[in-house]
């Protein structure tokens, strides 16, 4: 039976793991390679590394971080942030990533999704979408607005419509972050996640708001998520993927255990 995935997310800035609330107030949370290895050892099903303040100058640092992180990592490893061209993606794959996630650059030029998929396969392309509910829209959830540049810039695109286009262009998965929930530890946006998950045929990874075991059970149930991303819940020794999955199993969620 296919299991629900718990994905450990490392937000990286200048080669260090950081965590903030709603994309601001960043604090240091360790070395990416060490953190990734620990999460894998403690039962995470996958590792995502997001370079949240990717700049042209920072590319060499990121590639070095990816190389160091990938070296002894034998679970799926996705890297995102600042990937603007198929060549950028190729370098990240060469450094050891199994998947890349694209966000701003794909909205600017959606053919980037097609281009990476053609060279590396759809399974290697994750389209990351940062969305905020739009109270002015007729359907604030399905028409949640898509933001780019780490949540700083509105695009006018609507979440369900953009997720469908990404799928048609050959995305293998959608990584959906609720900007309303991100960093709050108050729970995932299950309505938003379900709206997207039910509108596409590819897996949807829910992100933003994880704080308790119930939040995960909820997003896998009501939210119809195929996987869930967690950053803050794993940091500072709050919990581990294994203990989270043991609790989820008790709640009837199918997870990879033992792990």
């Amino acid at each position: 039976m296919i299991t629900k995935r718990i994905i450990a997310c490392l937000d990286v800035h200048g080669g260090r793991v950081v965590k903030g609330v709603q994309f601001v107030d960043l604090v240091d949370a360790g070395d990416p390679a060490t953190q990734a290895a620990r999460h894998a050892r403690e039962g995470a099903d996958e590792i995502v590394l997001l370079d949240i303040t990717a700049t042209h100058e920072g590319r060499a640092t990121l590639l070095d971080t990816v190389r160091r992180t990938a070296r002894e990592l034998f679970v799926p490893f996705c890297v995102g942030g600042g990937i603007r061209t198929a060549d950028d993606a190729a370098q990240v794959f060469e450094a050891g990533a199994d998947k890349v996630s694209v966000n701003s650059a794909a909205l600017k030029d959606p053919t980037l999704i097609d281009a990476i998929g053609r060279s590396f396969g759809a399974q290697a392309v994750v389209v990351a979408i940062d969305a905020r509910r739009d109270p002015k829209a007729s359907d604030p959830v399905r028409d949640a607005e898509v933001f780019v540049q780490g949540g700083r810039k509105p695009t006018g695109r609507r979440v369900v419509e953009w997720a469908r286009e990404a799928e048609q262009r050959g995305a293998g998965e959608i990584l959906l972050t609720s900007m309303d929930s991100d960093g709050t530890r108050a729970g995932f946006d299950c309505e938003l996640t379900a709206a997207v998950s039910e509108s596409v045929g590819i897996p949807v990874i829910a992100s933003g708001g994880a704080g308790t075991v119930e939040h995960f059970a909820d997003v896998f149930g009501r939210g119809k998520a195929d996987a869930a991303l967690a950053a803050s819940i794993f940091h500072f020794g709050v919990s581990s993927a294994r203990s989270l999955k043991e609790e989820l199993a008790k709640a009837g969620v199918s997870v990879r255990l033992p792990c």
Partner: protein
Amino acid sequence: MRVTVIDYKAGNLTSVLKALRHLGAEPEVTDGNLSLVEAAERIVLPGVGHFAATERLDATGLTPAIRAAIARGVPFLGICVGMQWLYAGSSEAPQQPGLGHFKESCTHFAESTEKVPHVGWNSLEVRKGSRLLAGVEPGEYVYFTHSYKGPVTNDMAAVTYYIEPFAAAVERGNLMGVQFHPEKSGATGLKILRNFLSWNAEGTE
């Protein structure tokens, strides 16, 4: 040990190479150097991407070289599309023949409400006597990511259930294939790769 890894430009080899090196093997990559196939002690055909990419194996002369190596008894492991290539073909690229070692063809998952591709960790039901999957206990999970799959046949080393039962692994003598990614399947995956590296014709460890 000389492990020849075939590059047919269908995605990324880094993870496979990393896992093989981690296990003490010395992988060498070729996209057309037939002497590396002729001298190989093991052959690994990875592959993520489109079945049509295997056309390159024909264009570079690798197909007959690999066929000859398999006939000589060199242990062969196909991963993902590399496993699907062992069949007659795939409905993903009907004009492109596979190696044809298994007479059946690969097909897309049937229409259903489930998500396709099948992405994530799923369990294996291992057939008794599989040497590739020796030591893999019930309830161990491996990582899949694919939309096409091999049929249920007697050559299966393991079956997995998603929408329908399909071939998670095949095994016939020195010829082995896995639909999942052992290089991304944690300790279970490394165990399977170790079994492949220690495989010998006598069946002794």
